[in-house]
């Protein structure tokens, strides 16, 4: 850290709410040899670690989040709120309104860095704790949007790849695998090659129509590999594994190359919020551009599936075919009427793939998105109907004077198909949650 920086940020230290400077922090950071004295005078660093390229969080410029929200002359925040909504609308307009091809059956290995670099406190409370917390949220959200997907967890620590959770389709199993913090305590250096090899081997048997992905959360700036990592990279490209990296420290050449060559995404987290955003960008199923651009036929498959009937708890007891246990609840295979305990599964008797149709239907909104609504610009264009077609809220009768681009001054948004008007709140709700226009049902 330069002297100049120290002076610049001197006063920020005291008034920022993240510079609590409690004693624990200082003990730990001293123990790590980061020489930070209590009177905030910078000493020269004895062994400057490579990741010291980043400032301590409490030295960083304070994010004045309230400055982004500006009051207008009347002291109202409406203008700022509109600005945020306009941004959301513009983002939505960018996404194509037509169906795009996405990989629905996904297989993902989550690669967690468990090296000493994860104990850094530039993200609160530590990179490690934050990663675990976000990983849990990520797993829940990922299984919510990819109900037919499977996920495994591999850790990188002490130069080895370590299998933490087997590939499974049950989110509870994955969450359980990373639930015990003391078993994941970071030590040593990470090895990208070992961990990627391990993830690659665990996905080698998968059918060709499903996607194979590796998501790496990487905190270190070094990797300690037994061989040539570029060989591993080539092997991944050959077996069509998509690697994405969320780096917590800085961009590394090899990480960028891993992502670029395999068609994944690379991002460096700037702060806690950005870290979460980067991670959650991996949740929606990726569009299959690389396959269509090549013009080749993607390895597609038509699968025969059965949709079962669920028996209630009150039905007469009978034996299930999977465990030979006497129970009343269960699912009936539609082809052979055998009773199965849990779905999705392959029927033990006739081999039919038995799935619940709601599982499939969860992804249909990716296929048939609602086309964006048009903002009604003037009152002359507005229809005579005074209220929102969906929720019955009354539209404003006088148009707004300050107009943000993409927003309707009359507060009306019109479906291009059914020509009904909706309020801005329903516009957001329909496109983000409902995925179905209340006017035309499409």
């Amino acid at each position, binding site marked *: 850290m330069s002297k100049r920086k120290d002076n610049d940020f001197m006063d920020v230290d005291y008034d920022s709410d993240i510079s609590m400077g409690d004693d624990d922090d200082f003990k730990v950071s001293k123990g790590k040899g980061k020489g930070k004295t209590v009177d905030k005078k910078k000493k020269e660093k004895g062994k400057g670690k490579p990741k010291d390229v980043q400032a301590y969080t409490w030295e960083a410029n304070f994010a004045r989040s309230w400055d982004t929200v500006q009051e207008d002359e009347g002291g109202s925040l409406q203008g700022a709120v509109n600005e945020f909504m306009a941004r959301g609308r513009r983002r939505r307009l960018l996404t194509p309104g037509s169906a795009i091809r996405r990989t629905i059956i996904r297989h993902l290995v989550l690669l967690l860095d468990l090296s000493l670099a994860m104990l850094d406190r530039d993200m609160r409370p530590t990179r490690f704790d934050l990663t675990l917390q976000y990983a849990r949220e990520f797993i829940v959200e990922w299984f919510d949007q990819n109900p037919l997907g499977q996920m495994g967890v591999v850790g990188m620590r002490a130069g080895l790849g370590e299998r933490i959770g087997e590939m499974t389709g049950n989110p509870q199993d994955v969450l359980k695998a990373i639930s015990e913090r003391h078993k994941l305590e970071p030590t040593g250096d990470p090895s990208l090659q070992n961990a990627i090899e391990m993830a690659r081997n665990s996905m080698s048997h998968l059918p060709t129509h499903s996607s194979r992905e590796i998501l790496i959360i990487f905190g270190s700036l070094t990797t300690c590999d037994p061989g040539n990592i570029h060989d591993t990279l080539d092997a991944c490209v050959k077996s069509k594994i998509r690697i994405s990296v969320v780096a917590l420290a800085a961009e590394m050449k090899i990480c960028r190359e891993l992502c670029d060559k395999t068609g994944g995404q690379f991002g460096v987290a700037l702060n806690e919020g950005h870290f979460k955003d980067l991670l959650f960008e991996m949740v929606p199923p990726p569009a299959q551009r690389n396959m269509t651009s090549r013009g080749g036929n993607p390895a597609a498959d038509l699968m025969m*599936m059965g949709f079962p009937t669920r028996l209630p708890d009150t039905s007469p007891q009978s034996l299930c075919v999977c465990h030979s246990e006497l129970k009343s609840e269960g699912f009936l295979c539609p082809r052979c009427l055998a009773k199965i305990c849990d779905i999705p599964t392959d029927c033990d008797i006739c081999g039919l793939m038995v799935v619940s*149709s709601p599982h499939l*239907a969860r992804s249909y909104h990716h296929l048939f998105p609602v086309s964006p609504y048009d903002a009604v610009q003037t009152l002359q264009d507005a229809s005579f109907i005074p209220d929102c*077609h*969906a929720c*019955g809220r009354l539209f404003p009768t006088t148009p707004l004077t300050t107009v943000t681009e993409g927003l309707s001054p009359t507060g009306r948004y019109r479906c291009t198909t059914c020509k009904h008007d909706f309020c801005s*709140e329903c516009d957001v709700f329909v496109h983000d*949650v*409902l995925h*179905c226009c209340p006017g035309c049902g499409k």
Partner: protein
Amino acid sequence: MSSAPPAQAVATDKPSHLSVIVDLSPSQWHLSSQPPPANTFPLTLNSFLSQLLAFLNSHIASKHENTLAVFGAFPGKSLMLYASTESETINPSAVDANSYPPFKMLDSTIIKRIENELDQLDTDEESTLPVALVGALTKALCYINRISHFSAANVSKAKLPDSLTTSDPHILILSVSPDLSAEYIPIMNSIFSAQKLKVTIDVCKIYGPETVFLQQAAHLTGGSYISLERRDALLQYLTMAFLSPPSIRKALSVPTQDKIDFRAACFCHKKIIDIGFVCSVCLSIFCQPVPVCSTCRTKFPIKILQRLNASRPPPTPGSNGLSRTTSMSGTGGLPHSGSIRTSTSNGTLR
């Protein structure tokens, strides 16, 4: 009141929101009102409405803060019939000394709007269109989204303890029409958004065959699906099963669903099927092997098509019975297998 333990008071004092979706298909209601040779317990639209209004009044009456919205699904059109947040002035001449004004207003508003709509239908000759159940359901969800947002904003401003945030919303669908398989995807999307909003969907099947999609809706959102046996006792069913808000249901024994059909509608012919062919890329469902996926334009290898065609069950209607008997002998006679799919065995497997 003060003697009640505080924890219980919190749980039971919450106001609840009820959105009722009324299926008003004229043709189905006509069938439902046919005298005994056609129906054992005929139910006319008039008697249905009077029982429904009694139920709605009892929801309003059971708690002062309770809110109510009623949506009508008409042929090809859906409409909000009544919402308790919309303040309407009562015509002073209509005030009757013998009636409670909120009830009076609710009853007259709903009846008036239904009459208007049905009159328009007769002139337009469009009563053969399928009912707009999806429209009504999505509007109900938008409305619930609106009031929950509104109350959240209210709380942050005024710190009202007894505002609408505490309400647990539920939707009651009174259905008389059969399944609309063309609306499979929108209905499923609505179900998933109801799950996200933590809305319980209850279904009361008054007339007509069981609807697969509404069964799934009730199952996935934790509501109950009840198919009426004695349709003349509608009010009793409504009050006993659907009046209590979902938070109290745990303490009550509300009738649960019998069996749930997880069947889906195919994308190609909109048929409801129990064995389908699924594209691995986009998960579109087809009722027969197709060479090209109609949704994502994926071409399937010819080998797979041949294999699937070979493994398809023969289209004769006897095949279903055959598979059932083999499964019974194979697994030692499942007691349930004979009673399942009596209504679906012919026509779905082909």
